[in-house]
């Protein structure tokens, strides 16, 4: 098993699927000649040509709709939106067309598109380039939403998403493209539903997704070594649908839950997971579930303030200690 970077894992998935199926195409801003802002399509333009690796104009609504229209004829577009902030401009096509067309046509048409886009707070990108929009993509019927936390997931989720007949939104992270991790040498497909146990534990479940999985595992190490608290970490790589059974199973084991999210708290992963816990296993709880979220502010430019706006592993540690009555 080779250790490769997150962007390399994405690139490999693109390449394998484009070799296999001539109807798989990719499109987006600067993905072709320039090789992609985060290199996920690096070299594919030379290999597959401009008809299949399409440098689009800066028209997010237009080219997303174009990809969806092409998918009606069996084309399998992988649409890259350079930053999730720009995905707002494509929402009409994603929500009103891709997510609804099978339903409103009584099963006659479907839109098997993949839309990949990085979100998250990176390095001083300011309010309009630091959005965390996973919450927006997890509440619309007809759309799948996944978010890989490591190169193996990035590879395996993209592979399955390309072949799946549903529209799939893949939420990536600007800070994670150079993360290294093991990816199977042979072809590998991740399920598009479910969750993974990133760390086994018995005292509390920390729920993370994408970058926050790493804050959770870092916090779990600190809590284990310094405080004797054994955290389980669940990686919610599928945000739509959320893994109700996985959430229930873990909370029923640990009897405590904390959800860690990079986004503002309202109407988000945290509130949704808490609702599921209430619905599925309320009487298993030894303490009220809690969440660690971003401050409810647009992301500031100043680096110190930017760091204050979003949570980190220490915030998770502090939250857990508070829940256990151990806060200083």
């Amino acid at each position: 098993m080779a250790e490769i970077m997150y962007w390399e894992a994405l690139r490999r998935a693109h390449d394998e699927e484009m070799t296999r199926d001539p109807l798989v195409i990719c499109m987006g801003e600067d993905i072709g000649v320039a090789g992609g802002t985060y290199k996920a399509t690096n070299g594919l333009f030379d290999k597959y040509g401009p008809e299949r690796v399409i440098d689009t104009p800066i028209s997010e609504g237009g080219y997303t709709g174009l990809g969806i229209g092409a998918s009606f004829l069996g084309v399998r577009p992988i649409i890259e939106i350079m930053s999730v902030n720009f995905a707002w401009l494509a929402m009409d096509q994603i929500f009103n067309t891709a997510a609804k067309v099978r339903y409103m046509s009584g099963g006659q048409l479907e839109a098997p598109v993949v839309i990949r886009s990085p979100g998250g707070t990176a390095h001083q990108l300011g309010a309009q380039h630091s959005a965390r929009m996973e919450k927006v993509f997890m509440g619309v019927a007809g759309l799948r939403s996944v978010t890989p936390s490591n190169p193996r997931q990035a590879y395996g989720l993209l592979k399955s998403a390309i072949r799946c007949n549903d529209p799939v939104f893949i939420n990536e992270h600007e800070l994670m493209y150079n993360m290294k991790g093991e990816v199977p040498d042979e072809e590998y497909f991740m399920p598009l539903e479910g969750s993974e146990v990133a760390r086994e534990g018995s005292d509390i479940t920390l729920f993370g997704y994408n970058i926050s999985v790493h804050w959770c595992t870092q916090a779990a190490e600190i809590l284990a070594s310094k405080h004797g608290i054994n955290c389980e970490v669940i990686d919610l790589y599928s945000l739509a649908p959320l893994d109700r059974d996985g959430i229930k199973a873990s909370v029923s084991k640990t009897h405590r839950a904390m959800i860690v999210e990079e986004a503002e708290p309202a109407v988000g992963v945290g509130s949704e997971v808490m609702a599921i816990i209430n619905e599925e296993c309320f009487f298993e709880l030894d303490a009220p579930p809690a969440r660690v979220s971003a401050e409810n502010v647009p992301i500031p430019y100043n680096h110190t303030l930017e760091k204050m706006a979003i949570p980190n592993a220490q915030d998770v540690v502090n939250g857990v200690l508070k829940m256990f009555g151990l806060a200083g």
Partner: protein
Amino acid sequence: MKAADKKRVLREMLFARRFEERCYEAYVERKIGGFLHLYPGEEACAYGVLEAARPGHDYVITSYRDHVHAIKCGVSPKEIMAELFAKETGVCKGLGGSMHIFGTEQRFMGGYALVGGPFPLAAGIAKGIKMKGGDEISICFLGDAANNQGVFHESLNMAKVWDLPTLYVCENNLYGIGTRIDRSTAVIDQYKRVSGYDIPSAQVDGQDIDAVYAAAKIAVDHVRSGKGPYFLELMTYRYRGHSMSDSNAYRTKEEERMWGKRDPIIILRDRLIEAGEITLDDYSTMDTEVLEEIENDIIKFAEESPEPSAELLDKYVLAENDPWVSGGAK
């Protein structure tokens, strides 16, 4: 168009008119719910363009004013009416409604209810055609007001940059919902707006099917021959309001009378009478037959069809038993 084709098209247009008028009645009777956008007055647009194209072979996409385009593509009028009546025998099994008529077997790719939404979808369908190497074209019918959406410009630009086989047909009926075009739109002649994308275009009388057909022939040939997109503007008028909930208070009686004198069906009828191809009696007989077909065949089918079963409620949200959801066939 040959005389025999014109006679056939006259009957088809009359059928479309009576179909829509019957929808109006059914809506008043509350047999049809939701929003209902009717096509009377604009028939020569759909029929003129699609006579020049290959309905059932070429792909067609449009807005929520979609019944007649679907019928011309070959979608069953019975199943369209059943859809409007929200029955399980409807084209979309009662899940779509008036604004979402689909007939993918006839390559009618649907009615969409976001104004301008089909612009990029049509370009995408054309991209799919190009990738698969077929000789089909993608035809997008939308109203003038849709051209004030951003995706109009985005889509025309992409269609031109990539030479996509897309025919954009603008049915300019002079009103965007209830706002007259000169009150909302800087340039009233819509065909002029595409010159910025170096796309060939034309503007013709949308009430005269011969004019529409002649212009559409040029447009269709251009697109099918691989020369890229084309924009055809048809000047027309809808007799009813934007939808059934429209008071129609924004138009003058005089204007309505003026357009009423230029009825596309009457223009074609009189031309055929003048040419000695039909008589007024032939036309009356045709009308009676059409009305009987709609009542005895279409309405009856819709009325007698069953309601959708409860299991349809969540049947088409996601793909059924898609193996890749669980990571592929094991």
